[in-house]
């Protein structure tokens, strides 16, 4: 039982980090129509920015903010310089996926060329440990979960109650129609890149803090989890991605307690393929896209 609760603790942390990333990824896809496989590479960039700021002796919070800002800018640039021109030319979705894979290589291994191939240690004092039954969480872990919950709430408010959120949803549903209704779609898209880039940077930084030691290629596998969570929830569906992140996060960590930890990702893998085969629109069965 305590084994189960302990694994739930791990699962909650993974879910929290995963939720930030998955919501960012899925919103990016919904509004901009780019299935951005460079997402994890941008996360890595965010992690290193947070790490460097921290190493310089500045507080963790500033580090997180710096990571968000950096990834926000990087994502906007990525769109303006690469994705948007391809889209304007009418490239197929699959071409954009291949381009994003190319950008992933450029960013990820560009970082590796600068920092070298070894992992850096980003461990910090974990603070007090809280226990409830077998559930054990450190202060840092609780803060990460709190950040994630706050981000989910913020995304909810943004999408449901703000003008920008409505414009984003309209652009996601039908870009041409949104434009005809007076929504400045290209501006909405740029802002979306900025916001989701910020989420990406935040996810990268907390992911690095959570795992403690990271390197330029640490996020490769995390991308698989993001994709699994996003497809479980239905690509483009922010609420679906939240649920997907919870399912995948808990599923991988709890299963790790009972089977060999090496195989914990199998859950994510099976979930993703099953969704693709049976319900490509996701658990909530949202609108069918294209």
């Amino acid at each position: 039982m305590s084994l189960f609760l302990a694994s739930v603790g791990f699962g909650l942390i993974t879910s929290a980090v995963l939720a930030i990333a998955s919501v960012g990824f899925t919103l990016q896809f919904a509004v901009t129509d780019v299935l951005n496989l460079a997402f994890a590479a941008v996360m890595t960039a965010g992690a290193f920015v947070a790490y460097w700021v921290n190493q310089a002796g500045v507080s963790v919070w500033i580090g997180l903010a710096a990571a968000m800002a950096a990834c926000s800018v990087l994502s906007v640039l990525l769109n303006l310089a690469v994705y948007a021109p391809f889209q304007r030319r009418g490239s197929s979705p699959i071409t954009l996926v291949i381009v994003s894979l190319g950008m992933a290589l450029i960013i990820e291994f560009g970082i590796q060329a600068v920092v070298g191939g070894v992992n850096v240690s980003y461990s910090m004092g974990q603070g007090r440990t809280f226990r409830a039954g077998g559930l054990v969480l450190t202060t840092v872990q609780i803060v990460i979960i709190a950040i994630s919950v706050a981000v989910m709430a913020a995304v909810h408010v943004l999408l449901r109650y703000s003008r920008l959120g409505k414009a984003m949803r309209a652009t996601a549903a039908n870009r041409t129609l949104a434009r005809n209704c007076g929504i400045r779609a290209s501006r909405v898209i740029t802002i979306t890149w900025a916001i989701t880039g910020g989420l990406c940077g935040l996810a990268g930084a907390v992911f690095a803090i959570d795992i403690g030691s990271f390197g330029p290629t640490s996020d490769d596998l995390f991308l698989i989890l993001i994709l699994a969570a996003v497809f479980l929830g239905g690509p483009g569906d922010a609420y679906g991605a939240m649920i997907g992140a919870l399912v995948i996060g808990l599923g991988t960590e709890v299963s790790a307690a009972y089977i060999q930890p090496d195989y914990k990702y199998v859950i994510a893998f099976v979930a993703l393929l099953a969704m693709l085969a049976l319900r490509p629109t996701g658990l909530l069965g949202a609108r069918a896209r294209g």
Partner: protein
Amino acid sequence: MFYLITLLVYGAVDVIACLGLSQQFGVAGVTNFGFIIFQAAGAYVAASLALPSDTSNGGYQIYIGGLHLPFPMPLIGAALAGALLALPFTFLVGRRLRGDFAAIGLLVTAVLLNLLVTDYRPLFNGDAGVAQVPGPLQSGIFILSSTTYRWVFVAAVIVLAAGVYMFLRRITESPYGRTLRAMRDNDKVADSLGKNLVSLRTGVLVLGGAIAGLSGGVLVSFISVWSPAAWSYAETIVLFAAVIIGGAGNHRGAILGAILVPVGFEEVTRLITNSNPSLPPNLLPSLQWVAIGLLIVLFLWFRPQGVLPERKRLIAVPAPAPAAGQAGEPSAGPAASGHDGQGLLTRGEVARAREGASGAAGGDDILQAVGLSRDFGGVQAVSDVTFTVRRATLTGLIGPNGAGKSTLLALLAGTDRPSAGTILYNGQDITALPAFRRARMGLVRTFQLASEFKRLTVMENLLSAAPGNRGDSFRGAVAGRRYWRGDEAAAIARATDILRRFGLDKLANDYAGDLSGGQRRLVEIMRALMAEPDVLLLDEPMAGVHPELARRIGDTLVGLCREGLTILMVEHELAIMDEFCDPVIVMAEGSLLAEGTMAQLRERTEVVEAYLVG
């Protein structure tokens, strides 16, 4: 010397792999981001078949199998393994899934399979991989000095690569290959023309998988080791870079790409590393990956067709028969030449003959919709529509924007499935049949948006729709040109007739993607006619077409109906309806509003209010 031999073998293996990928990605448009797992499967299976049982090696490596089979069994096994591995992925490349989603599924599979094989040692010795795999014939049938043996090996692999190239060329240049390229350019349209996408894509995955598996088997027989590090998912990206740079869809381009990218990069890196031993160890491999990424993005932007673009397939248009005369001249418009299209409607005529013989059983109603509905998440696009299309009529379907006309057409053609209701075709319930089956029964549609196969010529667009070509199957393609050239010649003759009828024969060898909007609509109609339809469903065939041309299209359609073809046509222009269509069906807000001749409809106030005034 040993280095040169190794380079040659690697080069030839990369060529084989790139050819397989080029067939999948460049020719058939199947983006297999998991390509490398097929190579890996081949390598492991070849190793497992060639190695002796793992109990005989003192237990330093464990693996399943260990059958110790002689050459060429391991290589045959490798190809089979790649082919069989493709089967479970069939569900990913079916009709319903977007190509990019399927690609993601394959990518994820590749990453996770690598992880599993790395962590699960009993399968293939885990992270360390298998070693000491015996090469072909190394157990002493031919005693060759080591260098001679290696040179023979090199020669054999190069011959094998050449064989794979010849084989793929044979397939790509056949009617089957043309169908694959049509599917690449627009899969939905290929489906509506009677192409079974699931079976085509499965074939492509299986063939590419077999080639990838073979390349893996060859590689492991030479280097004698194989481990998860050799087949990380990123290796697939290298192969993609090679195919994109060389020229997707051109097998020579794939060969060039294989030599430039995987081989060339290794070489350059090695040279730089050797000349600058002081560089940090990780820098060059990192920069190598950055360069691969840059090459992919830059090529897709500046030269998406690659160094060696796909070749244009020119098909000589047979000279016109003397009687037809003045073909291609605008004055000899379609209406004027209404009777030189003999054989245009082969199947229609057969159907009518059959009808006559059986005493007109089934009556005149060729297509019936009964209580047809389709809702999209609560919005009723089509609700409870019942109507009948009579044989050999040109029935118009009219209604304001958003009335559900195109959705109705999609339901009839099988592009979309109804939420409720039944569709009867020649009295038979076809509601559950997929689009390609309905097309094969003679129920063919066109699309509202331009849907030509862009990178096929006009002639090829037409030929791609011809049913019953013996070369339009994998087996037919393998059998070779001699097997299918009779059918091909017949199809070309028929396509030429249709081209003349529409006055487009001069453009037969132009890429369809380069035509004007009106010409592309014509291509689409001609292509649908090539499919030998009994019922043609046209979605705004005259939208955006010059009025003069629209009239000519209309006259031709009327002529075709006289010959026995049935047409249901969605159109916005009342003038066109007035002139050509009888009867006319009016739709508004998903429901059927009225039916009758235009004159009758004008009498009815609700119709006038709903549409004719607005």
